[in-house]
C-alpha cells in the first residue's frame, strides 16, 4: 500500500483523490482558512489534546467497551462479533466525540455561538450538550420532517438550552438542514462557529471530524488485539455522511488484511429509487461544499434520499469514503428499512441492547458478511448509537404490520 493510502489518501490537505475540496460561497473562504489554521495550530497541539482527552474520559465516558456479542454470534451461526459500544458514550452516540472536539475548538477560537444541523437529532443533542458544558450559545437546524419523527430529541435539545429551528424548505430533512445551517453561517460568519456533524462539507471539515472520530478505531484496534491477539477480519459500520465508519476505519487503513465494509441505507430497496445508497447508486458531484458522490439526476439536481433512519437520510457522503470506495480499500453495501428494523429487534432480544436504527443497518449486513468470511471470522461492528430515540417509530412500524 502506498504511503498516501496509508495516511488516508490526502495527498494535499483536503483532497481525497478526486474528491474533497472547498466549493463554497466566497464569504466562507476566509472562515474556512481560519478554521484550518485553528485545526493545525490549536487542535493538534498537546495542551488541546490533553484537554479534550480529559473530557472524553471523564465526561463522555471513554473508552467505550468492545463487547463480544456471543448470543448474536450463535444465532447467526458463527463469527466472533464485537460491538464497539458507542451507544454507551454520553448522549448515546458517537457524535459526542466530534462535538466535544469542535466545541472546544470554537471556544479556543473565541467564538461564542455554535450552529449545527441535525438529522436524527443525535448530532444536535450532542452539540447542545457540548455547548451547555462549555458555556456556548447553540442553535440547531433540523428538517421539519425530522422534527416530527424525532420529537424526543427535539425536546432534549431544548432542555439543554439550545434553540431548534425547523427547516421547511426542500425535502425537510438533513440535506435541507445543512443548507440552512450554511446560510446561517454565511450570515453570522464572523461570530459563529459551524459545528458540522459528519466527515463532510468543505475542507477542513472532513479531516477535522475524522480526526475527532478516530478515537473509535484507535480504541477498537487496541481492544480487539487484547481480546483476540490479532487484528479483526472485517470492520462494519453504517454510512450516512460516514463519520462513525470513518472513525472506525481510519486507524486500520494501513492494515491490509482488515476488510472495511460500510452499509448504506437501502430504504425501500435501491430498485425502488427510494433510498440513500449514495456510494452504491450515486455519481460524482458537487454538494454541500465538497466534491464527492451524490444522488442526483442528469441535470445535477439533488434527489431527496429516503431511509427509515433520519440519521442516514442523506443524498451525499463524505469525500474520503468516495475515495476509499474508488481505491477499493473499503466496500459499501446497503440494507433496507425492513432489514434494519429486523436487525434492531434481533439485537434487543438476543443481547438486551436497543441499537439506533442507523446502527441497525450495520447489524443487518452481518449475515451476508459471515457467509463470506466463515464462522471463525473476527468482526468489529460500530454500534454507533442507542435506539431510545427510535422507540416511537419502531412501535408505529410494528403496529402497522
Amino acid at each position: 500500500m502506498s504511503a498516501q493510502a496509508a495516511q488516508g489518501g490526502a495527498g494535499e490537505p483536503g483532497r481525497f483523490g478526486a474528491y474533497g475540496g472547498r466549493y463554497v460561497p466566497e464569504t466562507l473562504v476566509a472562515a474556512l482558512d481560519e478554521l484550518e489554521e485553528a485545526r493545525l495550530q490549536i487542535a493538534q497541539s498537546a495542551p488541546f489534546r490533553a484537554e479534550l482527552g480529559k473530557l472524553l474520559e471523564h465526561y463522555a465516558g471513554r473508552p467505550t467497551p468492545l463487547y463480544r456479542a456471543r448470543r448474536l454470534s450463535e444465532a447467526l451461526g458463527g463469527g466472533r462479533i464485537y460491538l464497539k459500544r458507542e451507544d454507551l458514550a454520553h448522549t448515546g452516540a458517537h457524535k459526542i466525540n466530534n462535538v466535544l472536539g469542535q466545541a472546544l475548538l470554537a471556544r479556543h477560537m473565541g467564538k461564542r455561538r455554535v450552529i449545527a444541523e441535525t438529522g436524527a437529532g443525535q448530532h444536535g443533542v450532542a452539540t447542545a450538550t457540548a455547548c451547555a458544558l462549555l458555556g456556548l450559545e447553540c442553535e440547531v437546524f433540523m428538517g421539519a420532517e425530522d422534527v416530527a419523527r424525532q420529537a424526543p430529541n427535539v425536546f432534549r435539545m431544548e432542555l439543554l438550552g439550545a434553540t431548534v429551528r425547523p427547516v421547511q424548505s426542500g425535502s425537510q430533512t438533513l440535506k435541507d438542514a445543512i443548507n440552512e445551517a450554511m446560510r446561517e453561517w454565511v450570515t453570522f460568519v464572523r461570530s459563529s462557529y459551524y459545528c458540522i456533524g459528519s466527515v463532510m462539507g468543505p475542507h477542513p471539515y472532513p479531516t477535522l471530524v475524522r480526526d475527532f472520530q478516530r478515537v473509535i478505531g484507535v480504541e477498537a484496534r487496541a481492544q480487539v488485539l487484547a481480546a483476540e491477539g490479532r487484528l479483526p477480519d472485517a470492520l462494519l459500520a453504517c454510512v450516512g455522511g460516514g463519520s462513525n465508519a470513518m472513525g472506525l476505519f481510519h486507524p486500520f487503513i494501513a492494515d491490509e488484511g482488515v476488510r472495511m465494509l460500510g452499509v448504506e441505507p437501502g430504504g425501500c430497496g435501491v430498485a425502488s429509487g427510494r433510498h440513500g445508497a449514495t456510494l452504491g447508486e450515486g455519481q460524482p458531484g458537487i454538494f454541500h461544499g465538497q466534491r464527492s458522490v451524490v444522488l442526483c439526476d442528469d441535470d445535477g439536481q439533488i434527489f431527496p434520499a429516503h431511509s427509515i433512519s433520519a440519521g442516514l437520510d442523506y443524498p451525499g457522503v463524505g469525500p474520503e469514503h468516495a475515495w476509499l470506495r474508488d481505491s477499493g480499500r473499503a466496500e459499501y453495501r446497503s440494507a433496507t428499512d425492513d432489514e434494519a428494523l429486523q436487525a434492531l429487534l434481533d439485537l434487543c432480544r438476543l443481547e438486551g441492547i436497543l441499537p439506533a436504527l442507523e446502527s441497525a443497518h450495520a447489524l443487518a449486513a452481518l449475515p451476508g458478511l459471515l457467509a463470506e468470511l466463515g464462522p471463525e471470522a473476527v468482526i468489529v461492528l460500530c454500534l454507533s448509537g442507542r435506539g431510545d430515540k427510535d422507540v416511537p417509530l419502531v412501535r408505529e412500524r410494528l403496529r402497522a404490520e
Partner: protein
Amino acid sequence: MSRLAARFAQLRARGERALLPFLTAGDPSLEATPELVLAAAAAGADAIEIGVPFSDPIAEGPVIQRASERALRAGANLRRVLQLVAQLRPQIEAPLLLMGYANPFYAMGAEAFAAEAAEAGVDGVICPDLPPEEGADFYAALAERGVDGVLMAGPTTTPQRLAQLARQTRGFLYYVSLTGVTGARNRLAPGIEAGVRAARQSAAIPICVGFGVSTPEQAGEIGRYADGVVVGSALVSRIEEAANPGAAAESVARFVAALKAPLAAGDRAV
C-alpha cells in the same frame, strides 16, 4: 471585446451605471421567462442575470429559493435554460448572464457546458459555489469560448485575495454587499464603498454590487462608487406576487425603470 466589456465601456462613456436585474429561468414557467427578460431589457436593464434553478441553492434567501423550486416544478433545467437564451439572443442587445450552482454545470461537464453556453449566446456565467481554486477547468473552458467567468468577492475577502479575484475575474467583479444570503434588506450593509474602492485598486475591471439591494434609493447610493448594481430578490418578489404573466411583465418593467433612473443620470466622477 466581449459584449459585457463593450456594455460597461459604453455606460462609462455616458457616465451611467449598470443595472443588472436577476430573475430565475422557468419562474413561474418556461414560457413566461422570455417575456419577463424582454420586459426588463426594454425598461432599461443593462445586462440580465438569468438564474439556473438548483435543488439546494445555499447562497439564496427564501425568495430566490422559492423561485428555484417553482422553476424546477415547471420543468426548468440547464438544457432548457440554454435553449431559452438561444431563443432570446437575437431579440436582445443586453448581455445575458447565467447564475447557477456548480453541480448542474458539472453534471453537463465543464467543456460541454462552455461550448453550449457560447453557442447559445451566453455572455457570462456566475457560479457562487465555485471559487477559482476549484473551478480552474471551468473558468478556463469558458474563457476559451469567449464567455466571461464572473467571480465574486465580499466583505470577508482578505485584501490579498480581493486583489487576486479582481485580476482573475472576467467581465466584471461581483461584489457581495454583505455577509449573508440573497434577499431584500431595509438598509445597506456598512463598508461596501470601502470594499469596492479596495477592489478598484487592484484591477481596472468594472465592479457591480449585489445581495440585499432592493430599492432605487439603495441602487442610487451604490451607483456613487460602483459600476453597476444587481437586484434579484426584490424583482423576483414582484414576479411572485403578480396575478398573471402579463401583470408580472408590467411589474418587472416598472420596477426596472425605477431602479435604472438613479443610475442613468450622467455627471459622475469615477
